[in-house]
């Protein structure tokens, strides 16, 4: 069993590394297939200056050579090269600055989604087919399929424009409330539905009946048996949740003008800042891949009934 688990972890780890390598490769070659170099948009550059710039950034070498250098820099020094449009700043520095704000929003949003999602899901399962269950299910069904940019625009409209109780600009601490709510509502709905269905499943198990027959108190059954076991499937949602929050944050940061990594990414696409686009894609993708790996492995540890293949 132990060696099987180890084998599984190694296999997943290998796949994760291959995936990240694929991300780097795809990103690199896709960006280099785009016609028109990064300096095309700037008109007032003489050929000599352009040649000098290209030499400085290594753009005069062949594409495979550039790829090897790029890969080597990332692996050995975690260096994604300099940003082309923000003079004198490294890509990793720009990303690092943005990531501080974005990570804050993301972590708070995930925490809210987890806590409220589990509580609401458990309440819905325990009061199955009662009014409160119906209300919870209606709202979560609506929120699950609502795109993040629509949710964000609505919240902006209601709380910042009409009621004026929260700031629309996300550059202050208070301004982060709306982005956090926007990002947490959809994962929250997912977790609620996941918890509800797995809780209903657990409540029908024999060991719950056994516990009841033994005379275990209701609260103990709820927390010790039912909730503990019904939270295991929620672990599998950690990876997709991070992916949702990362992609959601791209638009949400644009809507609320949050100085985070998402806003940087969107503006780097319009500015054609290739190193920044590549660096951001790779780092965010690696984050998601690693989170998927961690949640899958945790899941195997949490439920011994799961068979390994």
């Amino acid at each position: 069993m132990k060696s099987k688990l180890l084998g599984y972890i190694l296999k997943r780890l290998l796949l994760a590394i291959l995936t990240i390598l694929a991300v780097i490769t795809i990103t690199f070659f896709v960006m280099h297939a785009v016609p028109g170099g990064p300096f095309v948009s700037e008109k007032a550059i003489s050929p000599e200056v352009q040649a000098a710039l290209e030499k400085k950034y290594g753009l005069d070498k062949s594409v495979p050579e550039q790829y090897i250098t790029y890969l080597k820099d990332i692996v050995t020094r975690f260096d994604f090269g300099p940003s082309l449009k923000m003079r004198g700043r490294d890509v990793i520095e720009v990303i690092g600055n943005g990531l501080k704000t974005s990570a804050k929003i993301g972590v708070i949003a995930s925490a809210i989604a987890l806590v409220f999602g589990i509580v609401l899901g458990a309440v819905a399962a325990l009061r199955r087919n009662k009014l409160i269950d119906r209300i919870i299910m209606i709202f979560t069904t609506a929120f699950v399929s609502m795109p993040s940019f629509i949710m964000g625009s609505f919240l902006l409209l209601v709380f910042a424009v009409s009621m004026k109780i929260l700031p629309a600009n996300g550059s202050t601490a208070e301004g982060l409330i709306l982005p956090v709510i926007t990002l947490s509502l959809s994962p929250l709905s997912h977790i609620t539905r996941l918890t509800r269905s797995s809780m209903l499943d657990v409540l029908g198990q024999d060991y719950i009946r056994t516990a009841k027959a033994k005379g275990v108190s209701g609260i103990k059954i709820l927390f010790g048996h039912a909730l503990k076991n019904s939270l295991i499937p929620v672990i599998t949602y950690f990876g997709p949740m991070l992916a949702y929050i990362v992609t959601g944050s791209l638009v949400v940061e644009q809507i609320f003008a949050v100085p985070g990594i998402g806003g940087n990414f969107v503006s780097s696409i319009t500015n054609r800042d290739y190193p920044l686009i590549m660096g951001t894609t790779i780092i965010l993708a690696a984050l998601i891949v690693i989170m998927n790996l961690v949640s899958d492995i945790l899941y195997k540890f949490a439920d011994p009934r799961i068979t390994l293949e």
Partner: protein
Amino acid sequence: MKKFPLTLHLNVDAFNPATDAEKEYMVQMRPSTTFFKDGMKRLLKNKVATVSMFVIIIIALSCLILPMLWPYSYAEQLGVKLGKPVDNSYNNLLPFQYGETEMAKIASGQSVFPHIMGTDSAGRDYFIRIVYGTRISLAVGFFASLIVLILGMTVGSVAGYYGGKVDLIIMRVVDIIYSLPDMLMVILLAAALRQSGLATAIEGTVLEKIGSNIISLFIVFALLYWVSMSRLIRGQILSLREQEYVLSARATGARGRWIVTKHLIPNSIGVVIISTALQIPSAIFTESYLSFLGLGVNAPMPSLGSLASDALNGISSYPYRLIIPAVVISLIVLSLNLFGDGLRDAFDPKLNN
């Protein structure tokens, strides 16, 4: 009567007319039903799915028919007339307001078709833009799912049927594409394809009308989303090819292609249709997301995502311009999802209990 084994002597009793008691056995208690009919019956019993289906049909029909009847077009700037100075009174009209020349017409007794949702900042009738945007979203969702279906079906059935090395290689590639963070890759590819020579490559062909950005959306979908479909089909085929009827077909000399097209695909079609139906809302979602980021359709063509994104600029004065596309997207995605769930409940035999 004694029977001799070697005579042709027949049993006369076997030719008597059937008695009423014997006829009872032949009465059909319930007309026989096909898998499809049975599923449809179950689908129509599901109220949520039926209502969603009607919502989708109404939306689809109205965005097919309305543009033919509407007197304005989606790109027509009402204040811009050839040979005349631009009439700014047409820009940013509120619902049921009219531009200056239209007011004059009304005053002289002529009737003018109302702008029931007003006009946008460039003086274009907003209602028809919403209708066109919906049309684009639905079309992108539908065709993208079709592309995903065809690609996934081909690769999945090849991998599933031939197995061995072919399967191993295909599935490793699928594994890697599957674990790529799809949205980030979609954004990257969409951003790159916009800058590529696609627009000039399709110039003069039928494809030009669709617009290079929508084509690149299709390419993005084709590249990334076929993997889960091919996984599904491969799994189906792996379990189906162990069935006895496949063995018997092979025993009678049927070849690989015949077995795939006549036995394996028809038997896995239910699951495939369900997952295609559920693919449509996710494609619509992706399209509106990209359009919102400015990576979607080419201007002046509207899409629900780009309409919502444009509306953000005037959000305090014209909030309805954001609310309308937002409600339409949510309605489409929600009803498609609910309908897909209903399809799954009705057609997936594993869930029938």
